């Protein structure tokens, strides 16, 4: 093959590769803005009641792939607070449309001072949701507080908000968390 033809083909291949490679560059697209706690040690208050206390505990700390041992984040058990705190609750919040919600109550620049997760028992306790579903929601709300956005591209992460059957972070979440903190 003549060199001139080869170069033309290489230029075309290079251009095509750049176009096709764009999705690989967006792997971090599941980060929620620039939100993050000051560092990887976060005061954790589990204000859950009944089995929701267990669910929060499992998702945050005790499951093998819970956020705290699975990623670099260390959740320091604490009383409720508003400084460098992640607080978790459940309640009968009524017909709100949401099963769970994460709220950044206090921020400074990109730094989260006080985050709050809520699980809505009005829906979750109506008989339509399994314990796995509830764990998925709890896992996702905690993940939001740490700075992760929804991820509908994977069925293995609790950050997927279009499914309720993956009650754990996946390796992508772990890598992203560890790159943030």
């Amino acid at each position, binding site marked *: 093959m003549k060199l001139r033809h*080869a170069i033309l083909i290489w230029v075309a291949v290079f251009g*095509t590769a*750049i176009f096709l490679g764009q999705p690989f*560059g*967006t792997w971090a*697209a599941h980060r929620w*803005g620039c939100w993050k706690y000051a560092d990887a040690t976060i005061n954790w208050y589990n204000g859950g*009641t009944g089995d929701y206390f267990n669910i929060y505990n499992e998702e945050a700390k005790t499951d093998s792939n819970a956020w705290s041992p699975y990623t670099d984040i260390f959740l320091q058990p604490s009383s409720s607070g508003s400084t460098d705190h992640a607080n978790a609750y459940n309640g009968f919040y009524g*017909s709100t449309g949401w099963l769970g919600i994460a709220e950044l109550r206090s921020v400074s620049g990109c730094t989260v001072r006080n985050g709050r997760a809520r699980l809505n028992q009005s829906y979750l306790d109506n008989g339509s949701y399994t314990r796995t579903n509830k764990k998925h929601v709890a896992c996702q709300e905690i993940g939001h507080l740490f700075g992760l956005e929804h991820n509908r591209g994977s069925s293995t992460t609790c950050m997927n908000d279009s499914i309720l059957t993956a009650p754990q972070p996946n390796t992508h979440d772990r890598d992203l968390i560890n790159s943030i903190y």
Partner: protein
Amino acid sequence: MKRKNFLVLTILVALCGLSVSAMLGLKQHHDEKAQQPSRTRSAAVWKEVYKNPDEMVKSVDTIVLAQAIDRQPGRIAYSPNGEDVLPFEVVSFRVVDNIKGKKGDGIIYVERAGGVDPEGKSVYLDADGGDFEVGNSYLLFLKHQEDGPYYYQVNDQGRYQVEGGRLKGVNKDDEVSVTFQDRPVEEGLRMVKEIKDKAGKN
């Protein structure tokens, strides 16, 4: 040039292209993220997440183009241990165009979480698009509360503010919201009506 050499070099060129592309994308993403906090400060797992507009139009109880005319503090919800306090507000809308479901006097009431709690602390939940602005118009996809007298916005796919005569969704990247995003209001309403009529025939 020998065929084997050509193929090896072509693969190397392709790998270089992929690497450059991925690095550029990642850098751009990190730059964007590092510059500014997210617009939103809350994120939700919605009960309903629709894959397309047809699903949403069929699922909701009411679809209206309506103007927000008033916001009033509503109920307060507490966690079982009393430690979490969640205030609500009720937003009144004057219906401009009733596309599905709403009947009555032309005023519709939508409850949403947010407001000021009894201790005077502000609770700002914007996963649904945030506070409604009195005077502004919205295309709303609503459901009636199972346990209350009001409507609620079905999720973040269910709100489009009218800005400059065009529809602006909450999450511009969402597969449903992108259908209506930036469309002129009349065109968006026509699309919704067509979807509703099509669903009615099936």
